[in-house]
């Protein structure tokens, strides 16, 4: 059982990041659940989603303590850092989250997701940069398998661009160096 929370501002694509993870996990033969949590705002409020990925039946879809936290902003770290299991993974968007001391019993990967997505001219792809770092840091799936899943996800929506995969791969590379 792997439990993951993706969290950030509404509009940072955090629910989509979780959805992509859930979809690829399902296609990879896993049991999955995805539970959203957000305010009434379309943008700017806090949003998060809780994803469980398992080889066996998922009982409660809710998450209190998680294996992995994908944090797009400061508020996400404030809210969830203390609930990551010891030895768990925290992916931090260092374009926005700066000058913080994280728990020492976590594997923390700081990746400048927002800046990288801007450099790659795919500003809405910061969530994919974060996913790349998360897949690399957790080893949840082979990075290339997951990259193909991202392409398939956006192809199915009829609006893929090679920049999506580039953003994701940049995240993988950033976590490799970290």
């Amino acid at each position, binding site marked *: 059982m792997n439990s993951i929370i993706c969290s950030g501002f509404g509009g940072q694509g955090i629910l989509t990041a979780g*959805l992509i993870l*859930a*979809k690829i996990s*399902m296609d990879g033969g896993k*049991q*999955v*659940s*995805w*539970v*959203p949590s957000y305010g009434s705002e379309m943008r700017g409020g806090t949003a998060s989603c809780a994803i469980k990925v398992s080889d066996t039946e*998922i*009982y*409660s*879809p*809710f998450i*209190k303590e998680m294996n992995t936290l994908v944090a797009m902003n400061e508020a996400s770290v404030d809210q969830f850092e203390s609930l990551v299991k010891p030895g768990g993974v925290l992916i931090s968007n260092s374009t926005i989250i700066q000058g913080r001391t994280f728990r020492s019993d976590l594997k923390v990967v700081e990746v400048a997701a927002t800046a990288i997505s801007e450099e790659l001219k795919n500003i809405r792809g910061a969530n994919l940069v974060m996913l790349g770092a998360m897949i690399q840091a957790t080893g949840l799936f082979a990075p290339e398998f997951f990259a193909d899943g991202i392409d398939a996800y956006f192809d199915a929506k009829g609006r893929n661009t090679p920049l999506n995969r580039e953003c994701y791969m940049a995240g993988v590379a950033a976590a490799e160096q970290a």
Partner: protein
Amino acid sequence: MALKLMKGNDALAEAAVRAGCRFFGGYPITPQSEILEYLSKRMPEVGGHFVQSESELAGISMVHGAAAAGFRTMTSSSGPGFSLLQEGISYIASAELPAVIINVQRYGSGLGDIFQAQGDYFQAVKGGGHGDYRMIVYAPASIQENVDFTTLAFDKADEYRNPVLVLSDASIASMMEPVDLPEMHEHDPNKNPEAARGKGDGPFKRITSTMYYIEDFDTYVKKKYDTMAANEERWESIQVEDAELVLVAYGITSRICKEAVMLAREKGIKLGLIRPITLWPFPAKAFKALPDTVASFMTVELSPMPMIQEDVLLSLDARKPVHNFLAGMNIPEPIDIVEKAADCIKQTAKGACNG
């Protein structure tokens, strides 16, 4: 088997379409509005009809009419909107017409709030409308069950010529899980022998000008609901074979209780779980079949006051204590359920009563 990752409300709506539902009338309210959104797009694709009615009362009345015309038909609502459906549901039951009603439960009385809850239990299972009728009430606990029980609801509505309720909640509505959707099922209202077709021409078509009950209606209607009660109980029992305390929970709460049972067993605490799948008829048979090891029960409910407790006590002839874990507006933690259950096991051993 191609699985699809779907949101609870969307999956439920698609299941209705695949069950042959071709008329939906209803009014938006959170947390069930995606059902309308989905069907507003989907119904025209399959030659069906979607009406966003001016109110819930209009919606349920349109459903009444569509059912009379032989359609498979559905409406959905939540909280205050579900209250507004009650008169229409009573009329549909009285007319012995099949229809599927969805209540995606939200918290509280009055306006309440939009998050998950299980406070509509009494209204759902004891009959929120006036008069002598009951509805089969299904309580799905997953997105797949949203699909399976919506499909079943249409079949049972036809079988008994009675409205059937699917009681979801805000968490099942918004979460996503993989689902295996059934094949498309066609239901042609023009080939439905029960469909009313009107009589004569002009603006004043009518079938009957009087409303009266058949001879010995009391016996007839009692037999109908007795048959449903006897044949339609559904439940799931988990690890009750040697349990000391059995949790009772339905819907999303039952999944948290399943986790609590597994956690308790790791600690050597003998918990079991009865999950009612039908809330009416309440699965009394599940309680009659328990071993003597079971000394007490604990309901786990997303409500500030006990509701299922009443039906558990009736099923037990009030012979054993029934405790409650009332989570109210909070989603309970499995460990908290285990701790309270362990405490109840001790209390029961000391001879304490309900509470």
